[in-house]
């Protein structure tokens, strides 16, 4: 028994592959790693399916019912089964990207930090030759790398899909570049929010020091933060304005606000005169305006919001390190 | 130690404490935080809905037709436009409606994690089982007390929601067939959280650890929610309308499929005939009942499985 024990475990120790804290991280969160791989496989699989056979089938069926035009056709604003399948596939891919920040927050607050502090295994690590700060750094860096890699892959696939299914989309008017999840899945935001989730989860886990409260509060905090940033989104870049004398300008892009213009150029709320000249004159209305973001504002909006989200994540990380440092003494 | 069970606490204090007793008290005391959070959420939602009801009439005026100057039938447009209550009304009712349709998810995660998984992981379930409580009664109390609290909460909120929606103007509160509106306006609103509770508890008993059980409970209910949303339209036979030429369905119809027969040149001119399948508004209740039945059946099956699992594991 003894001899066997010695043999097997000494054989296991000096193996190849990751070492030190990295090994410990990967080994401890093995099931989370598998889950992440599985989730990525599902996301990549559905998006690739949508890109290939899904889109082809949708097109074939769409043409069959006679909606071959390039512009949106009033008679064609319904979904055919193949398109609805295609849409579901794209929805799953983008939905995974939308869900990841919350999963990251819940996991980081619960399993990554909260559980370790609750059960004392964090203290176990800190009394090895690993300072709490290095432990926390590993806890942040390894998941951050994996989250970034996975999110970026899905984002790139989603972008590839987006650049190829324009006509289909226009015909069905189902998704727009500025719709919440689409907007995030097409740029850097999906990744930034995933990292924010991780940072928020880690901070909440350190504050709560318990598994389930850590999980619940981290998820709630992530929801609250995202509600704020999403509400701020249209105001992160100067808007473009369209004006028109007789009627409203076309409704394009991400509309931020609209109303009527008086002869002095002042903006007022539209009294909804429709075509009543007397009413228009009474309110001194000489035209209408609409503030909006054209699709060319995609990247500025995307990058400013990414910057804000990453800054908040950075603050959370900083707070986590300071908290740990204050609690455990001078950590080197 | 005497706080573990009120039955032992009662003799020491001399007079019996008021309020719930025995296992019910235990369950409510152990999950006090969850109970407080639930009550606060309900109170907040009710307050918002009362506010919405209060601005409901004004919101409707904000959507009405108008004329300039005001005629005997129509108010002045300037007056109508000054009303912003309609936007507030839509936004907040939408928020409550969506939240009510999502209650199943936190409930499932909580039931899997805190209610069952954590107790089995930390061994506190055994603590209960070695008091004068059989495991089956323990599980029954664990399920019944939250079920009652959930049913009362979601049922009450559902009624307040219906009251605040008043005449269900789809411009203000959304069409009846939108997924979250459908789930927040009928008995499904009560059934879904119960299914979440049962599925979460089953996950907790199966995994016996807090975090995996919370994750599995959440994932299973996410799947249930999405499957039912996807196949909701098939839960009751659709109506079909076929006519020569073209026609439009009213907004209240939940359209499913169009079949257009074209003449010689598809896509040009008027089609020869059009056929539409859809759910008219009158299908709302059959759809609600069938879906409620399915969800409650899932809840019952999960509960049964949980009890059988516990019985098989215990002597």
């Amino acid at each position, binding site marked *: *028994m*003894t001899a066997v*024990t*010695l043999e*097997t*475990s*000494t054989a*296991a*120790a000096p193996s190849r592959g990751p*070492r*030190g*804290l990295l*090994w*410990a991280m990967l*080994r*401890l969160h*093995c*099931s989370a790693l598998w889950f992440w791989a599985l989730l990525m496989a599902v996301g990549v699989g559905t998006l690739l399916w949508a890109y290939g056979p899904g889109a082809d089938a949708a097109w074939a069926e769409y043409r069959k019912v006679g909606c071959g035009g390039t512009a949106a056709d009033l008679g064609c604003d319904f979904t055919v089964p193949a398109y609805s399948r295609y849409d579901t596939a794209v929805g799953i891919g983008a939905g995974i990207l939308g869900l990841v920040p919350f999963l990251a927050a819940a996991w980081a607050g619960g399993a990554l930090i909260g559980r370790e502090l609750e*059960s*004392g*295994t964090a*203290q*176990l*690590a*800190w*009394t*090895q*030759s*690993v*300072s709490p700060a290095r432990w926390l750094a590993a806890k942040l860096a390894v998941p951050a790398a994996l989250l970034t890699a996975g999110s970026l892959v899905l984002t790139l696939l989603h972008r590839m899909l987006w650049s190829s299914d324009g006509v289909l989309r226009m015909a069905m008017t189902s998704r727009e570049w500025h719709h919440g999840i689409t907007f995030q899945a097409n740029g850097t935001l999906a990744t930034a929010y995933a990292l924010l989730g991780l940072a928020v989860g880690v901070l909440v886990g350190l504050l709560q020091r318990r598994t389930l409260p850590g999980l619940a509060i981290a998820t709630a905090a992530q929801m609250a933060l995202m509600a704020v940033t999403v509400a701020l989104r249209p105001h992160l870049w100067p808007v473009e304005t369209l004006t028109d004398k007789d009627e409203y300008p076309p409704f394009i892009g991400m509309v931020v606000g609209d109303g009527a213009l008086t002869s002095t150029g002042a903006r007022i709320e539209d009294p909804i005169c429709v075509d009543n000249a007397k009413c228009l004159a009474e309110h001194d209305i000489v035209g209408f305006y609409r503030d909006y973001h054209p699709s060319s504002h995609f990247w500025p909006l995307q990058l400013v919001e990414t910057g804000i989200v990453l800054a908040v994540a950075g603050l959370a990380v900083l707070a986590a390190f300071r908290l740990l440092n*204050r*609690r*455990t*003494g*001078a*950590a*080197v | 130690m005497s706080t573990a069970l009120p039955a032992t606490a009662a003799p020491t204090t001399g007079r019996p404490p008021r309020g719930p007793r025995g296992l019910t008290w235990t369950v409510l005391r152990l999950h006090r935080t969850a109970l407080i959070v639930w009550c606060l959420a309900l109170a907040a939602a009710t307050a918002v809905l009362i506010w919405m009801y209060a601005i409901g009439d004004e919101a409707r005026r904000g959507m009405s037709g108008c004329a300039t100057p005001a005629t005997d039938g129509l108010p002045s447009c300037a007056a109508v436009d000054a009303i912003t209550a309609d936007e507030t009304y839509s936004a907040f009712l939408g928020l409550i409606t969506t939240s009510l349709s999502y209650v199943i998810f936190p409930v499932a995660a909580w039931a899997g994690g805190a209610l069952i998984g954590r107790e089995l992981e930390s061994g506190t379930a055994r603590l209960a089982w070695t008091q004068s409580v059989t495991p089956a009664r323990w599980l029954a109390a664990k399920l019944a007390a939250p079920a009652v609290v959930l049913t009362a909460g979601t049922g009450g909120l559902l009624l307040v929601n219906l009251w605040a929606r008043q005449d269900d103007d789809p411009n203000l509160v959304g069409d009846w067939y939108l997924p979250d509106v459908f789930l927040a306006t009928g008995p499904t609103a009560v059934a879904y959280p119960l299914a979440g509770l049962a599925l979460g508890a089953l996950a907790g008993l199966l995994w016996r650890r807090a975090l995996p059980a919370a994750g599995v409970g959440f994932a299973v209910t996410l799947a249930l929610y999405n499957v039912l949303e996807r196949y909701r339209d098939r839960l009751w036979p659709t109506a079909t309308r076929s006519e020569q030429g073209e026609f439009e369905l009213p907004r209240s119809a939940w359209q499913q499929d169009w079949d257009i027969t074209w003449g010689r040149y598809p896509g040009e001119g008027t089609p020869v005939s059009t056929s539409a399948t859809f759910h008219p508004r009158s299908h709302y209740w059959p759809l609600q009942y069938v879906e409620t039945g399915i969800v409650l059946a899932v809840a019952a099956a999960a509960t049964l499985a949980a009890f059988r699992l516990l019985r098989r594991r215990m002597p």
Partner: protein
Amino acid sequence: MTETAIEAAALSMRFGRRRRPALDGCAFRLPAGSVCAVVGPNGAGKSTLLSLAAGLLRPTEGTVTVLGQAPATARERLAYVAQDKPLHPQLTVADTLRLGHELNPRRWDAAVAERIVAEGDLDPAAKVRTLSGGQRTRVALALALGKRPELLLLDEPMADLDPLARHQLMAALMADAAEHGTTVVMSSHVVAELDGACDHLLLLGAGRVRLAGPLDELLAAHTLVTGRADASLAAHTVVESRTTGRQITALVRPEGPLGDDWQTTAPSLEELVLAHLRAPEAPALRLDDAREAAV
């Protein structure tokens, strides 16, 4: 003066403003190479003291130095086993030892750790989750000793072990300590478990140091006396006295020669500790030449 393993000065630790401090102005000094027992009633601050020495907590006031360094910088040189023996339940025994290897790249001695695990007849492929409490203790101790620490901090190490395993592990621990000059600090409230193994004693009560110093000197400073109830002990420090009928039994710290009225015996470790536990208001005694606490 020998090298110092742990030195504390005015060490205080408070969890929350309104709560009673867990440690209140503790000062003591422990020379390197000693085996020290930290004894005290429940809630005396033993676990807090060990956590502070392990660099897991930051003291509210005062300082503690370990092996001449701040605990946070001496991390590599000390090992710590917490009271509830936290281990990752999802890892196997072999992986737990590998964890020690990976997290202590410069110090890990796999042979020592594996020997301790093998002596308990543990299957290296078994998950920690499936182990009994005593087996977990064994793995936790293997993890601590595999690190080759210069200072070993053990919080209630033997509580879960059967008498045989306790005896065996204690022997292994002492042999290891003697061979490598490891300083061992272990807390316990089972005094019998420590007798014969320790050469230093630190008795805590209500967050304060009650007794500190080499065990033999502490024992020599106390005398168990029996005499007539009306005899006076006023010249000496009385730790505890009990009157039965006309006879009085007391544990005293003689300040000079005791009179012929008294029958004297040397107290055992257990008698010394129990007397101090029963008499929480007895004055503290420190024989460890530490700097005086600046309270």
